């Protein structure tokens, strides 16, 4: 995974300034947590990284080289896979259709390309079993599945992209305790494989359990970056909620940036 750096990202929605010059970086092989209050701009930031939104200003670089993600496909091609907060599943479609939506496998017959349904089913089975996601059948509408199963399908979709950086926006929000543990385990496994992970979560316990560093967003600005080992939940909560105004933000040296 190349070092990712997003600089001075600005995003407006009509009159709302969702991101006001945010800097954000992820080192190779690290789990970076991204936390902040509701509406702080976390999802907006990672949607820009995912190519789903276009920033109004700011740059993204991978290993120092500027990149431009005009569509989610562009981001996938650079090895960035995103599991959206809203999962981005289509309820009235089957599981393989969902996992391969937008990047279907095809097979050419007489010069015309058709969907390779068999290959997609096989791959879907592999993905689901590697994540230990239990489903009654592949041929069910995903809207009929449980929250955990749907989460599992969204994660499988990201896993199916041979990604170096996996972005997870609230992956554990809908899950029961055992399933949360599975997701955290999965994040650790990704890191062991040398991949980077961005984890967005409101659950600081989860964040402290798996992350290497924590970036805090507050009202569309970066409120600070901390190494997980050297901080406490209290300090993070302080950064999230304004309480610690003493040392803020943009001036803080990006400790650990060159370290990896």
């Amino acid at each position, binding site marked *: 995974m190349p070092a990712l750096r997003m600089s001075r990202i600005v995003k407006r929605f009509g009159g709302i300034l969702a991101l006001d010059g945010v800097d954000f970086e992820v080192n190779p092989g690290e789990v970076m947590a991204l936390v902040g209050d509701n509406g702080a701009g976390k999802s907006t930031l990672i949607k820009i990284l995912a190519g789903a939104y276009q920033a109004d200003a700011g740059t993204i670089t991978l290993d120092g080289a500027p990149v431009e993600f005009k569509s989610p496909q562009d981001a996938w091609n650079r090895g960035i896979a995103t599991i959206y907060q809203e999962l981005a599943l289509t309820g009235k479609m089957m599981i393989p259709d969902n996992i391969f939506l937008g990047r279907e496998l095809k097979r050419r017959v007489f010069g015309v*390309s058709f969907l390779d349904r068999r290959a997609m089913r096989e791959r879907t089975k592999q993905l689901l079993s590697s994540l230990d996601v239990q489903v009654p059948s592949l041929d069910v509408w995903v809207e009929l599945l449980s929250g955990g199963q749907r989460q599992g399908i969204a994660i499988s979709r990201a896993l199916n992209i041979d990604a170096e950086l996996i972005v997870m926006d609230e992956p554990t929000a809908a899950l029961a305790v055992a399933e949360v543990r599975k997701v955290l385990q999965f994040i650790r496994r990704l890191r062991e494989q040398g991949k980077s992970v961005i984890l967005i979560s409101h659950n600081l316990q989860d964040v402290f359990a798996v992350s290497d560093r924590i970036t805090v967003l507050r009202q569309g600005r970066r409120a600070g970056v901390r190494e997980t080992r050297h901080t406490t939940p209290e300090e993070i909560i302080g950064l999230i909620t304004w309480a610690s105004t003493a040392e803020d933000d943009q001036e803080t040296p990006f400790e650990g940036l060159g370290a990896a």
Partner: protein
Amino acid sequence: MAPVGAPDGFLAGPRRAVPREVILMVAIIAVGTLFATQSEFFLTERNLVTVLRNSVDLAVICAGMTLIIIMGGIDVSVGGILAVSAIFIGHSYKAGLPDEVVVPIGIGVATMLGALNGVIVAKARVPPIIATLGTMYVFIAVLFLVIGGTWIHGLPDTLSFLIRGEFVGIPAGVFIIGCVYGCCWVLLRWQAWGRHLCAIGCDEGSARLVGINIDRVKIQAYALTGALAGIAAVLYVARLRNVEVNIGTNIALEAIAATVLGGADIRGGTGSLIGALMGVIFIKLVQNGLVLIGVSSLWETVVIGGLLIIVLTLDALETRRSGRPT
């Protein structure tokens, strides 16, 4: 026919305990039996072949309507497209052009009008019902301006084999319908494009997040429906050899009714081509039967509109009962 868990697209999705296609089959047999007891002419081969011939243009348009409704859209302007395309065909014939030129002109014009709908819906973000209602009135105005209340008649019969022809004893219409539905089915179920169409109908936001080019798919879908309306115009002219002022008036209502009867969800996401085709057959049989037993043709639209409302109400009730969000 479609067990629970059947793949979506051709047959309706796995939501219903009893597939809509089965219900429609039962309904077709029931009305068939009813009309057969009221009129001995109803079940004759001659009558049924006539019904088939009169169904081909609706069936062709209905395939497009099914795709549009699966995409979460609607096109109430198909009758207007049919009319304008038929005028171009009529005038091209009058100008002495041969079939090889006339047919592409008719289909080409219709495709462009369909694409225009698509552009308005996709780029200007006008809700499809409003956009196509607007273009419908524009198309109808064109119709009146150009033919000014008279018929274009006396068109050549060189294409009537499309309607009256037979191959190994099977009427030509069967092959046309087979071709159109076969192609649409392949598009819907075996092409990525069809998956993208369904995804847009299910959840446009999700479709956007996975990088589907929504505007392009929408424009293509409306253009395709336009093209099918153009084919329907060719068939219409081949069948009647004239273009009259009331051409295409009820065809949008009939196509929407057939699609919804066939199991499509008017809110998008699912639909069934086979079901829609059976809906067409059902509607055309009912219309034919009503005429045969001497009911005024005014009642046709009442019956179709009523059926549409009943089916939509039952769908809404089913959704509410199963507690699924609308």
